């Protein structure tokens, strides 16, 4: 699958997003493009056993917001306070 990738959360939820959006995360980018013949790069599927669904959903929303921002449309990205701590740690892990 060249156009989209699938991100799977801790609970098994699958998020299918554009490849370009997923590449905002440096970690995912290197997973998908690494030359080692890993399953992630072949299938385009990445599993995150440490990241919960709500957080992963928020992260996907961030990917799209980030693409929009760099295209010129600068809006605000709202984060619910109760998610922030986990979100910060996930973002740190994903290098995004």
């Amino acid at each position, binding site marked *: 699958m060249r156009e989209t990738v699938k991100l799977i959360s801790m609970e098994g939820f699958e998020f299918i997003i554009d490849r370009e959006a997923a590449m905002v995360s440096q970690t995912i980018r290197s997973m998908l493009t690494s030359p080692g013949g890993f399953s992630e790069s072949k299938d385009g599927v990445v599993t995150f056993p440490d990241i919960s669904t709500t957080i992963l959903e928020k*992260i996907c929303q*961030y990917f799209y*917001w*980030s693409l929009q*921002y*760099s*295209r*010129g449309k*600068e809006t605000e*990205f709202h*984060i619910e*306070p109760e998610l*922030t*701590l986990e*979100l*910060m*740690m996930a*973002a*740190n892990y*994903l290098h*995004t």
Partner: protein
Amino acid sequence: MTMLRSREIPSVSGKPRSKGHSSDTIQPSSPAPKQGPATSTTPRRRSPRLESLYEKEVSIPVSREIKSNVGERVLSLRSGKKVAKFSGSGSRELDVEVESEGKKVCLSDDDDSIERSGSKRKRVLVEDTNVASKELDNSRVIVDEEKGKTVVAHVSVDQTRDKGKGIVEDLGQANDLESRRKYTREEKGKGIQVEDTTSVVVQEMEMEMEMEMEMEMDNSMNIENPPVTDSSVNATNTQIQNGNGSRSQHFRDFAEKNASRFARFDVETDDEEDELSSDLEVEQQVEDWPGPFSTAMKIIKDREEDSTTILHSGVPFSSHLERSSPIVWAPRRRSDTTFSPPRAAPSLQELSMQVLVKNADAITSLDYVPDPLRVKLCQLLCDSRRMNLHFLHLLVRGSPTAICVPDCSWLTEEHFTECFNNCDTTNLMVLQLDQCGRCMPDYVLPSTLARSPKNLPMLSSLSLSGACRLSDVGLRALVSAAPAIRSINLSQCSLLTSSSIDMLSDSLGSVLRELYLNECQSIDLKLILTALKKFEKLEVLSLVDLPSVRGRLLREFVTARGQALKQLILTNSVKLTDSSIKDISENCPNLSVLDLANVCKLTDCALGYLANGCHSLEKLIFCRNSFSDEAVAAFVETSGGSLVELSLNNVKKVGHNTALALAKFSEKLQILDVSWCRDMSDDALGYIVDSCSSLKVLKVFGCTQITDAFIRGHSNPNVKILGLKMDPFLDRLADN
């Protein structure tokens, strides 16, 4: 030529100033005609050339406009230091204190000594001529009095040091009128010997204040010839002495009023004199080395010569800026009008941290948050003054490995005790409690951090900067609980004395790698020298703002422990000279970080030493050092390949030579600071930025000369330019 003090000095304005030596007849009177009769007391001839010059004399008090014509004289009021002692009318010995750091040049009527000193001067003067003809650049002439700047201490030192050496570059470029200014009358008088090798009797001034006339070498040398006999000298001496009682008082009053404006003068100490004399030898040596630095210097200077000879033909000087820069840089041509890279969206981590900082009180636990994030959060909280006890409790909970609070000024003693009473510090590796002066007196430590001898077994990095209530006793208690400290920051702990360092060397002598003693006022380097030498593995030594840092002491330390030294921070150690740099370069081959900001006495020789000795320098900080463009360029050529960060802040003379060298030889350079270097043109900066592919940050504060041609025309997408006018930069500082 005798000095006449027999006339009132009328106030004058519009005194032109020029570089070069002046004769020692500083006639503090105005128009030439008047001088004829006035000087009738001495049978002195004045050459017609001098007459014309005297038209533009200045007297005290001065408020002059300066014109930048060569050939006009400049008057400068010396600093309040007394230059000459009058030793009685009958004596033939004139003691003259040359106006540099306390060096005394004894001039007797002895032909010998005068010849000797005269010949020394001769060489300097000859050099000056060469330089002067090259130098006069922009028409900015500096008026001492007007700006209250003092005449030079460090520059005059350069002069005296340059005697007999081919080092002309100190007298270097652009704004070097200062280098011209500090010749005492006596020195200039001696200079007369260039033309006339008969002995010149230098008349000293009996007052604190002297007026000095600087004249273009070409003009001055022939003049002032009058071979004055000893008797006439004495006669005038007597006359001056007798006639000038009230005048001396007047001058004294004036000096008292104005001396404070010339605030800068060096304390004369034996150490300095020793260092000066060793500097002289040292400088001689650098020039003799056929090393890569000297070769590079020569090539660059020759290149300069060639490019400027054309301009110079027939013109005694040329403006430095007018010289066409050899750098040809074409700004990138863009079809689109506005150049703005697509704004990168802020990272999710940043965004979430910002929200967290705003709602820090709602955080209930920091479990599983990795240390770097904790540290970053804490930093942001301290910056926005939101750091509080609640968060500190969160940090301290469990068995933390790092507690970094960059600002503990909000923390009280009681709360500190409460927090750290039961803190489990068995795994604590990094403890940073900066600005903890309020909360850390000695008596809280035994119940908290130092409550048992092995309370901090894994602590390797301890920072207590700003612990102004911590004394030797408290530190001893703390260090006894932490035997494995490898890095200790005791900056601004003003109560600590040398016994603390002794204690540190006893308990941590074999493990300590980094020692920061910035601004510890009660610590004298002389007293801690033995202790410092006991640290076997010391890699980082930071001695910012310690007035006791002296060349001799530093030499002792680096000869003992220089091999392991990797970082040496010597900001504001104003007493250091080139010989210290020589010692450092000879003994510290592994030095990678060297900070010499505000070490103003350094000259180009220092760069030579560094180039020859320290080959792995990665971070080099200069600020307000007076290096010449050629020297910096030569340095970059020879050892700039390893540089990652270079600061030439206020190294005013850097220009296109340095730019060329940087562009060609510094592939690894990431951070470059050329703030206040006004000779860096758009072309030069553009060339640097486009050629240094690793460059990430360029600081150009105060560089009013750069224009949009550079700002928008450079083609390096990664570089961040800080310091442009009206640019907000505070948010970017955090990134560095």
